[in-house]
């Protein structure tokens, strides 16, 4: 499951509800609305978590929204490593551009240094065990 929180800004001429319904119907995405309001400029702002069985499906849905004139942005994200799931195989270290994921020698444990992470998300799809994930900080403060 790939889930991400996004901020959607709908121009006044775009009907919010119909678009969001299409995300479900056409792109097989699930959503959870975290907050919604209409700004003084009659612009709709919606914060929601969109989840999909694949990252590709998620991206398609976002591309569709952008085509319809919706402005999509993301709140601040952080990467985490699920230590319960990680097998310490090392596959992620081959793609991590910042060496936030690195091998501690001689034990060969794979460690994650959050400070070095650039949130490029490469590890999320590369980790064969799906131990790397994304979460969002301070969701409530967004709108």
């Amino acid at each position: 499951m790939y889930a991400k929180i996004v901020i959607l800004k709908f121009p006044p001429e775009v009907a919010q509800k119909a678009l969001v319904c299409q995300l479900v119907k056409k792109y097989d995405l699930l959503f959870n609305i975290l907050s919604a309001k209409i700004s003084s400029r009659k612009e709709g702002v919606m914060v929601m978590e969109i989840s999909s069985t694949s990252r590709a499906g998620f991206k398609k849905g976002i591309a569709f929204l952008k085509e319809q004139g919706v402005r999509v942005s993301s709140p601040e994200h952080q990467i985490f490593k699920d230590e319960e799931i990680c097998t310490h195989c090392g596959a992620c270290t081959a793609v991590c551009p910042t060496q936030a994921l690195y091998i501690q020698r001689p034990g060969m444990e794979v460690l994650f240094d959050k400070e070095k992470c650039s949130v490029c998300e490469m590890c999320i799809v590369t980790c064969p065990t799906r131990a790397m994930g994304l979460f969002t900080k301070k969701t409530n403060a967004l709108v």
Partner: protein
Amino acid sequence: MNDHKITKTYEQINEKIARGEAVVVTAEEIIGIAKEHGIVEAASQVDVVTTGTFAPMCSSGAFINIGQSKPLVRTSKTWFNNVPAYSGIAAVDCYLGATQPCDDDPLNKRHPGEFNYGGGHVIQDLVAGKTVEIRAESYGTDCYPNRRIEKTMTLKELPNAMLVNPRNAYQNYNCAVNRSDRIKYTYMGTLKPGMGNANYSTSGALSPLFNDPYLKTIGLGTRIFLGGAQGYVTWTGTQHKSAVDRGLNGVPLGPAGTLSVIGDLKQMSPDWLVGQSIRGYGCSLSVGLGIPIPILNEEILKYTAVSDEEIFTQIVDYGYDYPEGVSRSYGQVSYAELKSGTIMVKGQQISTHPLSSMVKARKIAELLKSAIRRSKFLLGQPQHLFVQQ
């Protein structure tokens, strides 16, 4: 016939294990012991050396009997959580392969595919005790009239399930680089262009078949650690090769021996059977496997004392050569160099990355060691050896 100074039989070692007196060490620990005491003295002291490996082993899967329905059915197509299993056997048996993706997976239509769920994941879900949706179809016969069944079951409720892996525990494997100018998504992981990284996948000195390079103690009936339970070696695996180039210590310098193994899936655990999604390549299953090597004499002990410095593999290009079936090596490196983090290939320094978990391999060797010490695991004497002695 043999001029060994030390000789022990399987029976003698098993008697010591049963009495709780066997001396058992791991394939990492034996290196120092052999150096300190010499191989003869070490062989007299140590009875068993334990090994371990944990990595994606694509040629894996399970024979599953899903139980009969009323009216009776002879399934010709079966799915577990929408992952198809081969059903050309009778009547409600099937074989679920680790690399089989689920039916609605977009595969590599949008390259590189994610391969989020497949046979390996079903196997992990089963051993984790999760409920799986089973669907099967049939063309219907007089004796088996039912044409379609659907049910949900857990591993406990399934009448039989055995892990049957036709090729595991590869004795050595290529170190993969990519000499092309485009990123490659392979079963050896993601390979950056221009030899941006080098990936390898064995546990080196801990790996089972590096510790018995001629399979002198491993044969049909050897009892092993498999997926968290006790399993058995049934035969050599597919693609097994023994006539290969070897170092002076007998260790093959490239891919060589393999094993086919079997075990009761119902006793296995999701810690040691882990579904894998390999980007751009497909689904797989990481398998935890460990083999105890009986120290029958000092010659066997010498094999088990092999270290990463003395085990070598070849650097193979997965950008052009491998996909085209060109066999060419860009150099030979030791596992000590690979584990150090960088190697030199054609004057270029390249970072190295494992795909096989040393942490889990070590844990397997430790678990096996403690099970043997506590008399919970007896050696299985091979009923047939694959080598001509």
